């Protein structure tokens, strides 16, 4: 990939990010799904401490919802973007252009990272404004914040891209993904400590990156007294890095192959078939 293509890709991604910010319905919808729910839940039962600790429930939720923002942009938003690009022909358009695929990938990476950064910033802002969440003071905590957010993003973005190539269409993607997403949100310690769950559920939660990213963020924002409510009574940074890293590697191994395959399979005939099907669905 040469430098010119990278530049075109960066510009493309930035253009699409601005389009996202200007699209009120999509941006507001995303905000309600993350910051909105957080504000509601934090108001409703955030005033107390996590049982058995001196850690604020509202701050626990703020950390959890930051992780959930990353998770939902990468695993809901990104697959929907990619299925939309397949359905409306954007992916095929870029196939007709020399160097279109690398530009597409760079562009999508930029727009997804832009969205993640936007939601994370807004969640942090809401956390600071509405709860006792404070931005870290120690450089070490900043460092933890950065690597947890970075590795957490890397653990889900390639997986989200892979999902986008496998799901049939944007509407189907939303309906197929939303239920498991909500389920993981409930069991992964976003709103209450995962130790409140039966042990088998805890194991399920620990298989997915959402729990680990939340844990890493709690280690930044919550006092060590919170450890009383964590599995093993520890922040487990090594395990966090290992699980997030494993997801990142798995995603990075599978996603490029799936993306190439999806692009290769696009053609005008497929485009027409899908649009006819969609029109038929719309008629009902």
């Amino acid at each position: 990939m040469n430098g010119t293509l990278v530049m075109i890709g960066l510009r493309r991604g930035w253009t699409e990010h601005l389009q996202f910010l200007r699209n009120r319905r999509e941006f507001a919808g995303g905000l309600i799904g993350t910051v909105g729910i957080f504000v509601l839940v934090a108001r409703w039962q955030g005033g107390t401490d996590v049982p058995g600790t001196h850690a604020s429930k509202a701050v626990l939720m703020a950390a959890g919802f930051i992780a959930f923002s990353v998770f939902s942009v990468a695993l809901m938003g990104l697959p929907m973007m990619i299925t939309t690009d397949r359905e409306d022909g954007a992916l095929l358009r870029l196939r007709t252009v020399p160097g279109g695929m690398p530009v597409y990938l760079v562009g999508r990476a930029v727009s997804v990272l832009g969205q993640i950064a936007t939601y994370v910033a807004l969640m942090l802002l809401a956390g600071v404004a509405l709860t006792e969440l404070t931005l870290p003071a120690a450089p070490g905590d900043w460092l933890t914040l950065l690597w947890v957010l970075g590795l957490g993003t890397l653990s889900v973005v390639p997986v989200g891209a892979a999902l986008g190539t496998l799901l049939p269409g944007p509407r189907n993607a939303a309906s197929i993904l939303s239920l498991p997403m909500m389920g993981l949100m409930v069991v992964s310690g976003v709103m209450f400590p995962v130790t409140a769950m039966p042990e088998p559920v805890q194991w399920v939660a620990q298989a997915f990156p959402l729990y680990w990213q939340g844990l890493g963020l709690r280690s930044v924002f919550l006092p060590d007294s919170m450890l009383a409510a964590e599995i093993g009574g520890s922040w487990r940074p090594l395990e966090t890095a290992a699980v997030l890293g494993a997801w990142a590697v798995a995603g990075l191994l599978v996603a490029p192959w799936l993306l190439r395959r999806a692009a290769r399979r696009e053609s005008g005939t497929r485009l027409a078939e899908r649009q006819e099907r969609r029109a038929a669905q719309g008629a009902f």
Partner: protein
Amino acid sequence: MDEPVISARDLRMRYGRTEVLRGVDLEVRAGEVVALLGPNGAGKTTTIEILEGFRRRSAGEVTVLGTDPGRGGDAWRGRLGVVLQNWQDHPRWGVRQLLAHVASFYRRPRDVDELLAVLGLTAQAGRMVAQLSGGQRRRLDVALGIVGRPEVLFLDEPTAGFDPEVRLEFHGLVERLSREEGMTILLTTHDLAEAERLAGRIAILVDGAVAVCGTPSGLAAVVRTRSEVRWAEDGALRSERTGDPSKLAYELHQRFGGPVPGLEIRRPSLEESYLDLVRGATARGAGDASGTPLAGEDGGLMERSAA
């Protein structure tokens, strides 16, 4: 003579057990406008997608600009222009913004504003792509297809769903590209009149093979061989198809010893003969739809390019 720009020999495509293309032969030379004409399902889009390198073929030899489309890299891709059906992409981009973005992929792109002016989209330059009408959207698709100064342009059903006025405008545009820039153009259509108007040569694709290929005037020559002569005899209407209606009429006059009652000689229009061809092939099913080159092909071509 030069190497053809597009060449397909015995091109075959099979999906599972159905054979969509059963040996398509096609040659397009530099500067030609060729129409792939045929009913829906004849394999036009499949053929053009194989030539564009978007679909792998099952068998046959294919080259576009001297390269196998299945192995064409970015340099090859940059010499092609592609306008597909059903594009609804980049709805949130500005018209000029999208055209400039696509132009930035090419080394020697056209001037974006000039191109917008040529296609009558200057007034829409700042609009969102989603706000364009069907005809405007299609013109933008063409602009995106030619912004990189392609040597070959593929147009798949370019005027499907157009109202007559927009269609006419579009025909003018294709003619300009061919005349003024010498662009080689392969287009698919199921509209005979459109093929006749735009193309120097028409390849009629029926049942996954080229049934006939030639200049519009060459196709007309085929028509002449299938005239219908009708007359009344013994109180009944008789009719006969013949390649030499004049001779049959003469024989009839001799047989009747004078005027022939109800004599009528019909030379079917190009359209009728096209429909005949399509119907015949459909009835034959997997028949012997082998390519039949027509006489007068070169004459027609020269006539065309001199115009």
